[in-house]
């Protein structure tokens, strides 16, 4: 049965999923605004198959009014197919560029069984974008998906990223949110067979007035699966607001589940605010491990003093500390080129926020 957007009421802000979101800044995406804008999606040549296919025959379940409206609006899907038993290779690079106005989009990534690949989505440009990404990781496959939000300052991005992890499959996502006026990403994970492993990493920098919201939900319905979530954010300036919600549900038959979620936020100045809510719902006690951690702190003055006492100017010291703060999450991406690219984006954003500047001796 297809769910239509009319089944999701227009949010008022009192609903749990919307209570942190500045609805007035969503340009009607949460209501009934028309999709009259445009988003361009293109990609580099690749050995994997990338094509535009009709929505017919694609199964996708929206999670809220925005994702269902986007799904109802799109007429085609950009589908990436990683061929069966592909043994890694260059990453598949897709660019999503907002060209202005309210627009929708849908990207589908299918990693066929026993394949291995990295897919990088880079979002840039302007406008309001309701974009869904749905991912299927086939049995025994290994897939890394990087989603970079490098939007212009006035852009709006509401998205639903869903992944279904197959038997003994491995999925790793890295969400890097640096730009945009409002970015709200809902990431949901479920498992279609036992032994699946999902690792969801996130790095975000929030500047003055920016609203950055990451909501994650891992639903364990299969035995012996793992979910690991680590999101780290740094916030600077008046009205900088981040929201991180980490929900994990372990259903009765998901024995042997191993789950851990972590969110750490670094507040760099007055007037910034980070909301962080981890949630764990266990319906069985027969699990391997379950835990969560959430903490929000300020710059450690002793760290800055130590670096400065070695001659390092304040602006360089700050960038070192912030980069260091992100380092353990970035290093989990597991690909030196990707890690360098992520750090490069972070550095550029730190510099544009006036928080620091790179000395010539600092290399990744």
């Amino acid at each position, binding site marked *: 049965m297809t769910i239509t957007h009319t089944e999701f009421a227009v949010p008022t802000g009192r609903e749990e999923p919307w209570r942190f979101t500045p609805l007035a800044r969503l340009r009607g995406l949460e209501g009934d605004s028309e999709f009259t804008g445009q988003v361009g999606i293109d990609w580099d040549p690749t050995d994997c198959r990338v094509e535009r296919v009709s929505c017919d025959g694609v199964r996708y379940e929206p999670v809220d009014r925005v994702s269902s409206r986007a799904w109802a609006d799109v007429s085609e899907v950009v589908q990436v197919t990683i061929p069966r038993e592909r043994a890694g290779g260059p990453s598949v690079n897709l660019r999503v560029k907002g060209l202005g106005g309210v627009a929708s989009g849908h990207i589908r990534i299918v990693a066929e069984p026993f394949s291995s690949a990295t897919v990088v989505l880079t979002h840039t440009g302007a406008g309001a974008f309701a974009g869904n990404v749905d991912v299927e990781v086939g049995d025994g496959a290994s897939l890394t998906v990087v989603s970079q939000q490098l939007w212009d300052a006035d852009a709006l991005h509401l998205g639903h990223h869903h992944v279904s992890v197959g038997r003994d499959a491995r999925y790793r996502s890295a969400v890097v949110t640096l730009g945009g006026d409002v970015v709200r990403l809902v990431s949901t994970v479920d498992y279609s067979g036992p032994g699946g492993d999902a690792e969801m990493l996130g790095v975000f920098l929030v500047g003055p007035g920016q609203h950055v919201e990451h909501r994650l939900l891992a639903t364990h319905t299969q035995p012996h699966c793992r979910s690991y979530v680590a999101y780290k954010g740094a916030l600077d300036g008046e009205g900088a607001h981040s929201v991180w919600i980490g929900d994990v549900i372990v259903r009765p038959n998901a024995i042997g589940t191993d789950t851990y979620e972590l969110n750490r936020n670094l507040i760099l100045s007055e007037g910034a605010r980070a909301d962080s809510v981890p949630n764990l719902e266990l319906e069985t006690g027969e699990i391997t491990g379950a835990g969560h951690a959430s903490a929000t702190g300020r710059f450690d003055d002793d760290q800055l003093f*130590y670096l*400065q006492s070695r*001659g390092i*100017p*304040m602006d360089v010291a700050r960038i*070192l500390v912030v*980069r260091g703060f992100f380092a353990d999450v970035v290093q989990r991406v597991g690909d030196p080129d990707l890690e360098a690219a992520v750090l490069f984006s972070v550095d550029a954003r730190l510099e544009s926020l006036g928080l620091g500047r790179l000395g010539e001796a*600092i290399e990744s």
Partner: protein
Amino acid sequence: MTELDIRDLRVSIDTDGGEREILRGVNLTIKGNETHAVMGPNGSGKSTLAYVIAGHPKYRVTSGSITLDGADLLALSVDARARAGVFLAMQYPVEVPGVSVSNFLRTSVTAIRGEAPKLRTWTKDVKEAMNELSMDPSFAERNVNEGFSGGEKKRHEILQMELLNPAIAVLDETDSGLDVDALKVVSDGVNRFRARGDKGVLLITHYTRILKYVRPDFVHVFFDGEIVESGGPELADVLESEGYERYVNKAANLS
């Protein structure tokens, strides 16, 4: 010749119970080629002196001056003081997660010298300095002070001193928490540094044992925020046998 001059230095700190004076008029002149040991019981303010020279924002200088070769050090930011030639080896070096030792060292030496070091000679210099301090090369890839043992932290401080090559090195209880072997390694580092010439060293310590390996030219007894006695290395021997008892008793008798 290098000269660090501390004149009538008075320093306060804000506490919950109001302002508290920690340094009550310190006078000390350290020239290049001189090693001064400042000794005193816990809480005497000797570590505060070290942090004030380096410029820690927690302390407020209420009067007096600190000059390096005539230039007003108190007017400079923490990093500018380091670039002017002051180095502080800390008693409790700070962990900086996610920043590798090699990145940290290269960044600081670049800041101090005003230009990036030539990669080939730099790598060689670091390797040699680490080798002399019996540090494993893998050390360079670890995060700054993260998970370091007490001895590793102190070696790392001395490594920085040797690479950054300051005019004045302030060593705050660098000997504390070291076993005899590590103490010798660290002392050898200090002696190599002194042998470069025109280097002033301010050695702050509670115990006399490091003074067996790093022979001071002057010894000062620090008590209740000021220097109460100064002398040559023989003063350290007196302190070794008598401890700080007589200063403590004297203060008790006065009050």
